[in-house]
């Protein structure tokens, strides 16, 4: 056939010939992918080594259970509901979005889209409203992932509170739609632990727990570099050194973790966007600039005060590091903490 003639003549390479044959067999889509595109997307993220390893473990576990089923052996149930714990800006939402595609490619979810909700999307103002809202979100997420951010805020407690109704609706959905819904609860580490502890049944329903540690200063530097390159910018060596020094100082000076420098990757993104604006200001003052100048980010363009502010020791020894927490959630957390520490004997 023509394809083989082309191969014999040296007109096409073996991979090309194979791709054409695949198309002929009904392969449809384009050039062979470097790896399943979504897993490659996950691997391309800076840091998150443990997250990447855990995702592969989960995929391998599911694949082996499928093989066991095919071989007629007893197989473990594959429960994919997860808890993502970590400070803001550590990649939880980003990973959840990629995970949807990864699970879809692995055949574990039919659609693999991600519906992101927080308390306000699940909890209503009157009896029955919550169940309705929660069910709507569950329905929207069917076939994919329901990502519940700041999930601990559902356990606020109190008389007129419908958080518990939301939790019950979610739990029922997990039972009814075992094979086409994955629920991910996300939030700060300590708050998620407290939340899972308050309702003992919850911990067993969310068997996969992925922790998102704060990025190291070197990882934050890489993230800044990646964000800039993606927008066709580049850090000048002096700028890179200044940023690296500021990030390292912030990493040391924020006192003992778990807080760490606030913001993390989000802080870096804000920095990059601000730098782009400052560079524009600097260059606009000149009558003309070449391609090279448009691309290079100088040290003067970096506004490092936010990072160096984080290098100051936290005010008040022993208090939790300051984070951006919406005021009503802060109140709810206080109530939750009082309930949990008051009621439970450790």
């Amino acid at each position, binding site marked *: 056939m023509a394809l*083989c003639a082309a191969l014999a003549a040296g007109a096409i390479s073996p991979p090309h010939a194979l791709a054409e*044959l695949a198309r002929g*067999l009904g392969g449809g889509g384009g050039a062979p992918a470097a790896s399943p595109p979504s897993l490659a997307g996950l691997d391309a993220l800076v840091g998150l080594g443990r997250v990447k390893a855990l995702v592969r473990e989960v995929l391998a576990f599911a694949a082996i259970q499928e093989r066991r089923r095919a071989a007629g052996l007893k197989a473990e149930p594959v429960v994919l509901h997860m808890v993502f714990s970590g400070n803001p800006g550590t990649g939880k939402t980003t990973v959840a979005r990629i995970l949807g595609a990864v699970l879809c490619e692995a055949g574990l979810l039919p659609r693999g889209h991600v519906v992101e909700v927080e308390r306000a999307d699940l909890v209503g103002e009157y009896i029955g409203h919550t169940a309705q809202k929660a069910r709507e979100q569950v329905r929207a997420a069917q076939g994919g992932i329901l990502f519940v951010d700041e999930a601990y805020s559902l356990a606020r407690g109190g008389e007129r509170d419908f958080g518990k109704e939301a939790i019950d609706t979610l739990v029922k959905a997990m039972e009814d739609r075992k094979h086409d819904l994955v629920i991910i609860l996300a939030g700060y580490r300590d708050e998620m632990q407290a939340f899972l502890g308050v309702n003992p049944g919850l911990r067993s329903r969310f068997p996969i727990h992925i922790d998102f540690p704060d990025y190291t200063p070197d990882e934050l530097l890489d993230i800044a570099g990646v964000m800039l390159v993606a927008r066709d910018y580049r850090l000048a060596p002096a700028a890179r050194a200044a940023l690296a020094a500021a990030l390292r100082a912030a990493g040391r000076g924020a006192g003992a973790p778990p807080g760490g420098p606030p913001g993390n990757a989000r802080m870096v993104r804000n920095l990059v966007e601000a730098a782009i604006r400052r560079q524009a200001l600097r260059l606009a003052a000149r009558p003309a600039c070449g391609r090279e100048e448009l691309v290079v980010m100088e040290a003067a363009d970096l506004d490092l005060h936010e990072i160096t502010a984080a290098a100051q020791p936290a005010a008040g020894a022993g208090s939790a590091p300051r984070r951006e927490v919406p005021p009503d959630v802060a109140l709810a957390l206080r109530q939750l903490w009082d309930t949990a520490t008051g009621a439970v004997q450790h």
Partner: protein
Amino acid sequence: MSGEWLIMGGPGAGKTTLFLALARYLGAPVRAATRGAPAHARGRAVTLVDTPSLTDDVHPDPAARRELARALARLPRAGVLHVVDAARVGRASPGAGLAAADLALAQLGRHHPRYLMLAAKQDLPWAALGLDRLLSLLPGVAVVAVAAPLRWGLKEVRWSVAAAARAAGPRRPPML
């Protein structure tokens, strides 16, 4: 096993070693390659066919290109045993991925009802890691771990191939 199965893979993957080991395991006498035909082993229900290496680039020797073209011409009708050197995959740096020819063949395998990947050289260090990487790089592809010198995995290859032959039809090969 039934019909004709091509043993394919990149240079140094271990195709010929596996071809000989499988032929011996199945009790199929081996016929050496001649100018017109590749080395093959005709068994009771199966014929194994050794093929030239799948290179990523165009081969400079026209005779080698013709041989490979003849092998690929058999593809649509024959089954594919795709041999990958798992030890090399394991030794490679984390982002390395697979050779283009291996990826292209694995991609073709998703749509081919009789395709099986053999993660070879399991007796060597790094091969277990290589197997793990193959499984995560190619979700849904049927992979059997083998080590020809120790005859590991040959029984599984026979079973998997028999199952693939029975199950020909679904878009994805069964996960075995």
